[in-house]
């Protein structure tokens, strides 16, 4: 076949160009350390790189978010730890006070001590996170949640709980509402409260009682009225909400310490109630920890705290009431602390899972877009050899001419 001389040159120039382009591409891959120089090099991998980069960046962001939750949860936990030990101290004081044998001046001293504790508790409840945000104020970060006023300590803010995204599908609470910790504490035994009426004159002391059958609970108010006729003490129970006597409807002989049992609940009364003494049973209501302590302070300061005549009995009833409520309060604080502990533990688990994922993402990204040096350098060497061979052979072929022999 005839070959045109310019074809020899053109074909060789094309080939040399192509080989040089390949060589340059490999060289650029090595110098940029990227396998994908433009999306055209590997369109699918280029798109996946973008998706995984986003997942990786989000994963890093979640780590930052976790640090925020970790910070506020640890702060709240340390504040609530102080609250717990404070409440336990108060409890010790109350147990001592309830043991009897305290004279008025002892009680005054205890009252002064408890007043200090109350102030301390208020300060703890109004703790901030160091940059001016209250820890327990719900959504109103810059509003002081607990204010001590004429009506005792009031909660000024709201029930908001700030959630933070700590994983792609997980949000954790970064704050707890003060109302849930300090205010929503049920008094009595948590379901109902049995109390001595303020005008009682006997020495009847009522226990906190228990629920025997939740299904029978009515949520109504009751009154246990005592009458002493000819030395025989009897009582009858009335449902004051419905205005009807509770079965059996006839007076029951009173035995100190014997359980009084109706409508799924039971409690007992010890001591000697006087004629006309009344004990009420009502569903538990919320009583803040502050209120519990300040009620106790009032009881310690007042000779007859309930306004009756038997000071010792009244103090015992008040103290028992406070002790029950305080136990509920400590429970409440411990519950929140345990939830904080759970959150902190979950954060740790999420943290290590997040770090593992970060490593995975980086590995995948590296596999997708980073150059494999072994392969690239071996390619480079091979392409260099081919180019050199092409150059040499071109010189050899183009050097052949009949004119040289003329």
């Amino acid at each position, binding site marked *: *076949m*005839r*070959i*045109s*001389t*310019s*074809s020899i040159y*053109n*074909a060789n120039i*094309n080939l040399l160009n192509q080989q040089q382009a390949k060589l340059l591409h490999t060289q650029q891959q090595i110098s940029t350390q990227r396998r994908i120089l*433009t*999306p*055209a*090099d*590997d*369109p699918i991998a*280029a*798109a*996946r*790189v*973008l*998706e995984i*980069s*986003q997942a990786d*960046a*989000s994963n890093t*962001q979640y780590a*930052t*978010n976790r640090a925020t939750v970790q910070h506020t949860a640890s702060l709240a936990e340390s504040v609530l730890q102080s609250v717990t030990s404070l409440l336990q101290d108060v409890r010790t004081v109350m147990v001592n006070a309830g043991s009897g044998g305290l004279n008025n001046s002892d009680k005054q001293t205890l009252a002064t001590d408890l007043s200090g504790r109350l102030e301390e508790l208020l300060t703890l409840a109004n703790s901030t996170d160091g*940059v001016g*945000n209250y820890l327990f*104020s*719900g*959504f*109103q*970060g*810059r509003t002081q949640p607990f204010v001590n006023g004429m009506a005792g300590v009031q*909660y000024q803010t*709201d*029930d*908001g*709980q*700030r*959630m*933070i*995204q700590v994983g792609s599908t997980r*949000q954790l609470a*970064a*704050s707890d509402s003060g*109302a849930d910790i300090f*205010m929503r504490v049920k008094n009595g035994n948590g379901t109902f409260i049995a109390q001595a009426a303020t005008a009682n004159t006997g020495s009847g002391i009522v226990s906190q009682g228990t629920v025997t059958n939740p299904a029978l609970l009515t*949520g109504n108010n009751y009154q246990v009225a005592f009458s002493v006729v000819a030395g025989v003490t009897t009582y009858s129970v009335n449902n004051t909400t419905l205005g009807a006597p509770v079965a059996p409807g006839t007076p029951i002989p009173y035995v100190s310490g014997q359980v009084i049992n109706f409508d799924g609940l039971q409690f007992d009364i010890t001591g000697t109630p006087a004629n006309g003494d009344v004990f009420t049973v009502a*569903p538990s209501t*919320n009583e*803040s920890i502050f209120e519990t302590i300040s009620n106790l302070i009032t009881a310690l300061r007042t000779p007859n705290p309930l306004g009756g005549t038997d000071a010792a009995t009244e103090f015992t009833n008040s103290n028992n009431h406070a002790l029950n409520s305080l136990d509920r309060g400590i429970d409440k604080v411990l519950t929140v602390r345990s939830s904080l502990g759970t959150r902190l533990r979950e954060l740790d688990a999420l943290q290590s899972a997040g770090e593992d994922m970060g490593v995975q993402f980086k590995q995948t990204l590296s596999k997708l*877009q980073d150059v494999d040096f072994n392969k690239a350098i071996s390619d480079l060497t091979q392409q260099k050899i081919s180019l050199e061979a092409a150059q040499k052979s071109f010189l050899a072929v183009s050097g052949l*001419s*009949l*004119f040289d022999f*003329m």
Partner: protein
Amino acid sequence: MGISVFGSGLSALNAAQIGLSTTEHNIANANTPGFNRQEVALATRLPQSTGAGFIGQGVDVSSVKRIYNEFLSTQVLQGQAQASKLETYYQQIGQIDNMLADSEAGLSPALQELFSAVNNVASSPESQAARQALLGGAQFLVSRFQSLNQRLSDINSSINGQITNSVTTINSYAQQIASLNKNIVLAQAAFNGQPPNDLLDQRDQLVSLLNQEVKTNVIKQGDGTLNVFIGAGQSLVVGEQPITLKTVQSLSDPSRLEVAYVSSASVIRVQQSSFQGGNLEGLLTFRSESLDAAQNTLGRVALVLADTFNQQHKLGQDLNGALGGNFFTQAVPLVNSNTANTGTATVSASVASSSALTGSDYSLRFDGGTAYTLTRLSDKTVTVLATLPQTVDGLTIATSAGALAGDSYLIRPTVNGARDISVVISDTSKIAAAAPIRTNASLTNIGSGRISEGTVNAVFPVNVNLQQPVSIVFDSPPTTFTVTGTGIPGSPAAGVAYTVGAPITYNGFTLEITGAPAAGDTFTVTSNTNATADNRNALLLANLQTKNTMTGGTASYQGTYAQLVSQVGNKTRELELTSLAQTSMVNQIVQSQQSVSGVNLDEEAANLLRYQRAYQAAGRVIQVANTLFDTLLSLGG
């Protein structure tokens, strides 16, 4: 006898000389583009007839002809038109490919920056620094959108420039071909129909160059002229007459140029589909196929981001206690009335549902009466709209009166999405990180009922009574409750049945109550005043990053952008490979063509020797004849 020897010797000398100069011409033009090697056609002279038979009279040079294979040349033309189209398309799309090449310089880092900033606001909603960083992140994203879009717009303008260049080149080639036609006819007439080889080569070369700009068909005429046709049979050169092309503004989109004929004072537009190869088609196809798609997709990401972010932002509450406003400005769909429209109607388009947008452009045509025909340009889906306004693909199209049948409009819903996005908010306190309402359970509640935080319904405009205080008080027995507040239908609305966990919706909010509330238990919904630590709306904004808000709820912002990158990458790769394949195919054909018509220097060297020898031999013949004459003359002496 001696005379005839002289005669034939001279003819041989002459033939060898012509052979030498033709060889020399071939050597000289070995590298001239479009040159076809030439050959001397020799023929024996008419012999002298004698009784002794026919006695040869020497050689005649009948012609110098070029070695030209029309079949191969046509094949080269066909291959080259396709190759130059692919090559141009590849070079153009390579610009977009390079723009998207660096994952650090694309859209994703800016998207990430925005949503990291939103997350940081969610972590510390009261922090001015975090809020300022969010505005910075939004600004960063907006300027990234704008600069990517600007790059695409620049490419669009440069396409206009290249089309103009291409048309100028085509006109110049057409003119040259026409004048060569004229010269060839003249030359042939002047020299007894001998082919003017070098003029023919020049004309063929011009046709080949023209063919690289736009696919060309040629028809040879009897008089030696060449008629040139482009596109779907439009003539460009007829005999000695060239026809002029020019660029004109597109009727449907004034921002782009189209090609048209200038023919006796009227302008005839050439349909893009009638070009079937060459640079010009490469440019036009790139513009309509890849550039528009890239700009529309980028614009769609910007538009949907602005829309969804704004909607969520408007459901929140800023630091001043007011409902959030727009965070980003959102582009409006572009509607171009065809400049050839005769009616006076104005068509407008607005986004009804950004997630349903397709990213395609639409052409709307008025059919008369009230009916319109809407064509989605990406897949040519035709929808007949009996009346306007109507909503199609998330786009509401409306019109004023005055359209005349045949009027048409080009609707480009997302093309300006990336150009027109900007950040509206400059005051950090206007960032709506909080929810506008909060719920509260009264501390005196006895039952175990709990109220959820409540959410704002995504209905626009937001209910005016959203932030009015509402109370929900449980009746006795607590199987029903009473709702009181401004905006509650029939307030106080008593006896609403209580179902545990069922959604309770009033005044544009929805909440749930769970557990067993007791009679008299009270729950309230109030305006979320002083809520510096509330991050509920910021969390919802942060969730938009991974939410499938695009393409009918199947893709996220980043997913759509990644799709664009992969589409451009795929197309570039495809063009790289096909253009490489096409070029090497053209090279093969050119090689075959050159093997016939090209100059081989070794061959020419041999020819030089051949004609040199022939010349020497002819010289010797003359010498012999001379000697013969001398012999005769000496006889007489």
